[in-house]
């Protein structure tokens, strides 16, 4: 039993829904109680889909238990076929139905429906959403794809995009364009945008492009083994990775990796003088492993940030994640507990967070700007406009998206120079963001400090607050901690909000190290000099 307040991934049957909802002509009969129908709204509301997910829930109730849940399932499967006439059906159980052991696969098989029926075995009490998507796609390929003669021209399949994926719609389009530049046509992109009939003809492609290892690797491996199709290992996220990807495709196909790069702007945008202010900004990354590993490379080598923390929530990818973090001299954070992520971010005091929907909230609570780089994401991260993450246009989009939450270069200088100006003060926030500037929106949950107290690094009365709340009580010393003298406290307030947390932390660390009990303005500037780089 594990107490969970919020989870990065849903249960595995939600992964299966992501596959089914991304496709047409496939129907999912899910043995589940009525409440599980909530999952529809992930697709209809958050992703704004204009059709219901192709899912029939049996919605059994307590009075059906022990009586006849099996017949209920059979009726639901039969009715679903009659009503929707799908090309193929997947059947399975949600967590509750798994416990009553009705064997949806066997029951549906006995119905002799006039379409392929693929049973899914998704262990709800062990695995999660990404596994569910990966396994469902894998089983679809097993059931429907076959080795077959290759197309005459060089073609490939694109694997792993699903409904509710972070920018999957546009990534598939962008990578299709990119492959087109090399002279390669896409045979099938799946699951997103495909039908069961498409999956049946995947065997005719020459190779596979694995865009999302989290949700497509099972299928890629099986296709490699069964249809003899090699698959790409580089995910084209960022400039360097996109070029590596082109080389990998070239080595698989013998085509030239040289393509027209005139649409690529990120390198110049990073090299232009305004971007000097980005250099060395401290970033913390968290999300799914594939996006985080790629984002770290972009941050470090294509924008010039300093990566001060990184991690992922999907344990399946812990190994590559750890290896990647090591290259930046970091220990990877592998957890699906967002409170741990929040503590790690507070401790690292970054100037920018790159994360999921949850890190955006953490950033809001800590007063640290955040850009979203990975699932899970909310309605505002399904933009109307074309905004891929992959390929050259993806790199351009990434530059814009990451830079947007930050204070602009010149503005940063002005804030430092005129920090006391009544309307151009540091708490006003970036000038290109509308609304009332107040980045330190702290939750209304009252007793946070008392809750988090014990387990924190010294110097942090609360990890949820690196500036203002503490400022109010800065003169109160918890057991032997250095005390801020009023003048130093005023000086600290003059430091722009986006570096204040770091300044405070450094000063306190310095004071402790030197055994200074009272922090004066002197101490503040000594610490500044000490940490100057």
């Amino acid at each position, binding site marked *: *039993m*594990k*107490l*969970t*307040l*919020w*989870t990065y991934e*849903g*249960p595995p049957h*939600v992964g299966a829904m992501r596959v089914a909802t991304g496709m*047409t*002509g496939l*129907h999912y009969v899910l043995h589940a*109680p*009525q*409440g*599980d*129908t*909530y*999952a*529809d*709204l*992930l697709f*209809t*509301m958050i992703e*704004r*889909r*204009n*059709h219901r997910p192709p899912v*029939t*829930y049996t*919605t059994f*109730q*307590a009075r*059906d*238990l022990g009586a006849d849940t099996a017949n209920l399932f059979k009726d639901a499967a039969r009715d679903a076929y009659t*009503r*929707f*006439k799908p090309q193929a059906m997947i059947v399975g159980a*949600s*967590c*509750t139905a798994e*416990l009553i052991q009705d064997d949806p696969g066997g029951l549906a098989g006995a119905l002799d429906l006039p379409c392929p029926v693929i049973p899914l075995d998704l*262990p*709800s*009490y*062990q695995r999660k959403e990404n596994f569910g998507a990966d396994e469902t796609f894998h089983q679809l390929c097993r059931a429907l794809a076959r080795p077959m003669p290759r197309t005459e021209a060089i073609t490939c399949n694109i694997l792993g995009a699903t409904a509710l994926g972070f920018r999957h*719609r546009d990534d598939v389009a962008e990578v299709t364009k990119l492959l087109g530049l090399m002279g390669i046509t896409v045979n099938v992109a799946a699951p997103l*945008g495909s039908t069961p009939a498409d999956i049946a003809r995947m065997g005719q492609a020459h190779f596979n492009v694995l865009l999302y290892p989290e949700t497509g690797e099972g299928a890629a491996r099986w296709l490699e083994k069964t249809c003899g199709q090699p698959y790409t290992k580089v995910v084209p996220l960022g400039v360097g990775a996109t070029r590596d990807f082109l080389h990998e495709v070239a080595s698989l196909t013998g085509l030239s990796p040289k393509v027209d790069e005139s649409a690529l702007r990120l390198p110049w945008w990073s090299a232009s003088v305004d971007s000097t202010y980005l250099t060395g900004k401290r970033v913390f990354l968290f999300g799914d492993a594939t996006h985080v590993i790629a984002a770290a490379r972009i941050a470090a080598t294509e924008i010039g940030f300093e990566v001060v923390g990184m991690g992922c929530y999907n344990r399946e990818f812990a190994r590559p994640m750890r290896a990647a973090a090591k290259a930046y001299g970091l220990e990877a954070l592998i957890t699906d507990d967002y*409170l741990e992520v929040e503590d790690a971010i507070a401790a690292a005091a970054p100037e920018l967070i790159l994360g999921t929907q949850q890190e955006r*909230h953490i950033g809001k609570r800590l007063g640290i700007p955040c850009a979203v780089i990975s699932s899970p994401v*909310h309605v505002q991260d399904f933009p109307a406009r074309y905004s891929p993450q992959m390929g050259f246009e993806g790199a351009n989009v990434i530059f814009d998206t990451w830079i947007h939450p930050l204070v602009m270069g010149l503005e940063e200088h002005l804030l430092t120079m005129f920090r006391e100006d009544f309307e151009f003060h540091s708490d006003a926030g970036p000038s290109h963001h509308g609304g009332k500037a107040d980045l330190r929106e*702290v*939750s*209304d*949950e009252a*007793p946070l400090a*008392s*809750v988090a107290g014990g387990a924190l690094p010294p110097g942090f009365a609360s990890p*949820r607050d690196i500036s203002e709340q503490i400022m109010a009580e800065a003169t109160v010393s918890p057991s032997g901690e250095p005390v801020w003298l009023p003048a130093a406290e005023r000086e600290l307030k003059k430091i722009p909000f986006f570096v204040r947390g770091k300044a405070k932390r450094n000063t306190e660390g310095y004071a402790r190290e030197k055994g200074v009990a009272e922090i004066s303005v002197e101490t503040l500037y000594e610490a500044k000099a000490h940490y100057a780089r």
Partner: protein
Amino acid sequence: MSLDSPALAPNRGCRDTPVLKERGQREVFCGLTGIIWLHRKMQDAFFLVVGSRTCAHLLQSAAGVMIFAEPRFGTAILEEKDLAGLADANTELDREVARLLTRRPDIKQLFLVGSCPSEVIKLDLARAAERLSGLHAPHVRVYNYSGSGIETTFTQGEDACLAAMVPTLASTTAREVLIIGALPDVVEDQCLSLLAQLGIGPVRMLPARRAADLPAVGPQTVFALVQPFLGDTHAALIRRGARHLPAAFPFGEEGTTLWLWALAQEFGISRDHFDAVTAAPRARARKAVAAHAETLNGKSVFFFPDSQLEIPLARFLARECGMTPLEVGTPFLHAAITGPDLDLLPEGPVISEGQDVDRQLDRQHEARPDLTICGLGLANPLEAQGHTTKWAIELVFTPVHFYEQAGDLAALFSRPLRRKALLTAPIACSQISRGPGQSPGGQP
């Protein structure tokens, strides 16, 4: 309006309308969802669901963008080892609860909430609650109820929660009024102030904002419900000797007036005094509703079952906004509680209970209502087909009771229609969408 004359009711209401009972696929949340508003209402309570990852995911999806630093609800997720009997679920639960209560010393009430998995494996949470209450008394009181989807739909979770508290309430012989049902604080304050001005009291609320404010109950207690879905709580209070004051629900000017009048009569308040207190807010409510009734008047409305608020809301829309209900679907029809509203709802609509979602979609398609009230899973697919919808969950998450909110309530229904009139660009097919004009569950 004359309050107590029967001429007020339509010639024929819907109380005797035969109910279309449906049993098929439902598209309704389970009772766990109530936690989303209950934990905001009870400020020293924590809701601990004993369930699966699905339950945790439902809660956070229903809570949507409301992600708190540390919410006062969570899920103790059952794992393989709990199911295989390798770990003793009770020991595990005790450990998680102890850890939680150390982290959150502000918690005074803990609700162990049962789910489908905990019920199917027959985890006895009632016993666990007793045991834990013993362990953590007097600081924390531990309750238990089920919010499982095999037992409860959506708002029934609040009913189960309140019903679980009733047996533990202190006894009293005082003559007091209990107002039953979670209201947003601002609405609760308005309600209390109206009752105070009328001279009705003492008034106590269930749920209370804090454990220390919990009411007592006894044979002199009378109670009024502010939500129609509180059937079990109603029964539990009657078992404690309390007496129910049936009335139409306080939605809209008319509903609020009738609801208050039922209480006023019980307390012998004169008609003159009643009018003096309510005249101004009634006029305000009528005025506010009128602004939206212009949009709503003459339009038809179709309710998919969701929150059990459907009957009183249909009554409000029919009588105060001039709409014509075509079908009023509700997950569960508690005739004794919604009787006064059914009497007022003019004969005509199909009254349906339970659901078979595909068949109901067919009926809705036939009926082509001007406005469809439905859950989040159906709203966008129906919009894409050209229907105008209002998502029902907002009716539970928004302050809509009593006079001052009557206009807001009407606005929730008129806005989709006004938007429809404003948007002139045709909907194009995007990559993410299959073209409109397809049946929502349909495959090409």
